[in-house]
C-alpha cells in the first residue's frame, strides 16, 4: 500500500509540474490543481498509514493521528479558494488579451 500511495503522489506531482510549465493558462491551472492533490495525499500520509484503527480518539488505545487529517482539511479548503481565484483571474486575462497565453502574447509558430 505504501508503494502505491507513493506512486500516486509522485505521478500527481510530476504531472502537475509538467502542466505548470506549459504556456497556456488552462493547463497551468490544471497543473496547480494536480499539485494540490498530490500535496494533500502527501500530508495525509505523513500521519502514517493505518488499517482498522479508530479515526477518533476513544477508549480504545488504537487510533490514527488526527492532526494530519485536520491539516489536510485546511489545505483542501485553502487550495479550493485559490483555484477558484486563479480560474477567475485567467478568465479575466483571456477576456482582456483575447488569448489564453500566460504572457498575453502568443508566440506564432512558423510551421503553420
Amino acid at each position, binding site marked *: 500500500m505504501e508503494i502505491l500511495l507513493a506512486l500516486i503522489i509522485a505521478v500527481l506531482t510530476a504531472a502537475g509540474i509538467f502542466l505548470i510549465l506549459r504556456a497556456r493558462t488552462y493547463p497551468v491551472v490544471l497543473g496547480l490543481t494536480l*499539485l494540490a492533490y498530490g500535496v494533500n495525499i502527501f500530508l495525509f500520509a505523513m500521519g502514517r498509514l493505518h488499517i482498522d484503527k479508530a479515526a477518533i480518539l476513544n477508549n480504545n488505545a488504537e487510533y490514527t493521528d488526527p492532526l494530519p487529517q485536520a491539516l489536510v482539511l485546511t489545505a483542501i479548503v485553502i487550495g479550493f479558494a485559490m483555484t477558484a*481565484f486563479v480560474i477567475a483571474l485567467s478568465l479575466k486575462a483571456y477576456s482582456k488579451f483575447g488569448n489564453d497565453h500566460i504572457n498575453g502574447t502568443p508566440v506564432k509558430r512558423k510551421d503553420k
Partner: protein
Amino acid sequence: MHSAILPILIPLIAGILLLLAKHFGLKNQRILSVAMIIILIVISFLALPQVLQNNPVVYAVGGWQAPFGIVLVMDRLSILMIIITSLLALGALWYAIVSDTDKRGAHFHVLFHLQLYGLNGAFLTGDLFNLFVFFEILLLASYSLLLHGEGNGRTKAGLHYVVINLVGSTLFLFAVGTLYGILGTLNIADLAYKISILPSSDVGVVAAAGLLLLVVFGLKAAMFPFYLWLPGAYSKTSAPVAALFAIMTKVGIYAIIRVHGTIFSDNAGELANYYAPWVLNAGLITLIMATFGAMSAKELKNQIAYLVLASVSTLLISVGIHSVAAMSGAIYYMIHSTLIAGGFFLLSDIIVRSRGQIRGKLIKAPLFNNSVFIGSLFFLYAIAIASMPPLSGFFGKLMILFAAIDHPHAGMVLTVVLLSGLLSIVTLAKTGSQIFYDTDNSAEPIHAKITNKYFPPVLFLFIFAPLMVIFANPITEFTQNTAEMIFNTNAYIEAVLNISTETRQ
C-alpha cells in the same frame, strides 16, 4: 493579557466593519479605515513595554497549552515588525485616499485591512502550519490588491504573481508535511527542541525539508533565483499597494529569521546553521542581479522595484553572515528600508502623474509643474535608499559591513555590497538628472493636476529616516537586544513550552 492577539483581531474586525460600512459611502469608509489603523498603531506601541518587560509574551489560543494548541508569540522582533507594518500602512492608506486610488475598484479598504490581518498573523504565530494559513490570507488579499484598478500589464503581472505563489504554497505544505512526519510536531519551539535530539538517520530528510522551507521563504523575500516576479508585480500595481508591498518581502526575511533561526540554531547538532551559507550566497547573487536590473531599467517604477530588491538582498546577506552584530544591523536596516521604499513608491507615482503622457519612461521630456519641490524630495529619497550619509540607511549598512569584517568571506561580501552601493548611486544620479535636469526646454511645460495634498504621506514616510539617525542610540540598543534574543533560542523555547530545556532532557 490579550495584547498578543489584538494586532491580529483589530485588522480582522476592521475588515468586517468596512465591508458593512460600504452602504454609508466612501467618505465614512475612509474615516473608519484610517481610524482603525491609528488604533492598531496605538495598540502596538502600548504592547511594546509589556514585551520589553517579560520577553516574549506567549498567548495560548483557546487556553490550549503548547505544543498541543496553537500559540501566538509576541517578542521584540514581532512587535517591531507589527509597528513598522502599521506605520507603513498609514502612509500607504493616506496616499490611497488623497490620490483616489480607493475609488478605482470595490473593497479597497476591506482588502487593505485583511492584508494587515495576514501580515500581523504571520509575525505573531508560533506554529508552522498556522504560519502557512496566515501566508495564504495575506497572499489572497495581496492578489486582489495587486489587481485593484485597471491595466493589461497589471493583469499579466498579477497572473504570474498568483501562479508562482500558489506553487510556493504547495512547496510549503510539502515541507510542513515532511517535518511533521519526522518530528511529530509543528510548534516552532517544539520543532527546535525535537531537532536537538534528532537521530542521525533522519538528518538528511529534515535538512531537505528545511531547505524546501528556505525556498518558500526565499520566494516571498524575492531571493535569487525566485526574484523575477517582483519587478513586474511591484512596478505594475498602484502606488499605495506597491508601498504596502514593501513589507511583503520582509515577511520572507522575518520567516527565515524566526523559523530557520529558531529551529536550526546552535543547538541543532549536525544541522546547526546549515542554511546560513545558502542565504548568504543567494543574497549576494540577488544583490548583483538587482543592481544590474536597476541600472538597465527603462521605467522609473521598475527601477525602484529593483532598488527594493537590492535592499532585500542586503538583508539576506546580513542574515546569512549570522552573527549578533549583523542581525542587529539587519533589523535597523529593515526599519529604514521598509519605510523608505514605501515612500519612494509613493513619490514615483507623483512623478509619473506629473509627467502626463510620458509617465515613468526614463527619456528626455518637457519640464513639469512643481518640479523643484518634487526634485528635492527625489534627491532626499535617493540619498536615503542609496544608503548615503547623513540618513538612516548609511548607519544600517555600516553596522552590517562592520559585522561582515569578521566573516570568513568578508572580502566578497564587502566588495559586492560596496560596489552595488556605488552603482545604485550612479543609477539614481542618472535617473534624477534625466527627469529633472536634462529636460526638453523647447517644449511647453506639462501641467498635471498634482495638488499639495499628495505630499504629506510622502513626507510622513520620509521623516523616519532623520528620526532614526537622531534616535540612533536607543534604536541600536533595541536592535542589539533583539538580535541577542534571536540567537538565544533557549529562552524562546522555554517561554513557549513553559518548561526549562534542561529538565526536559
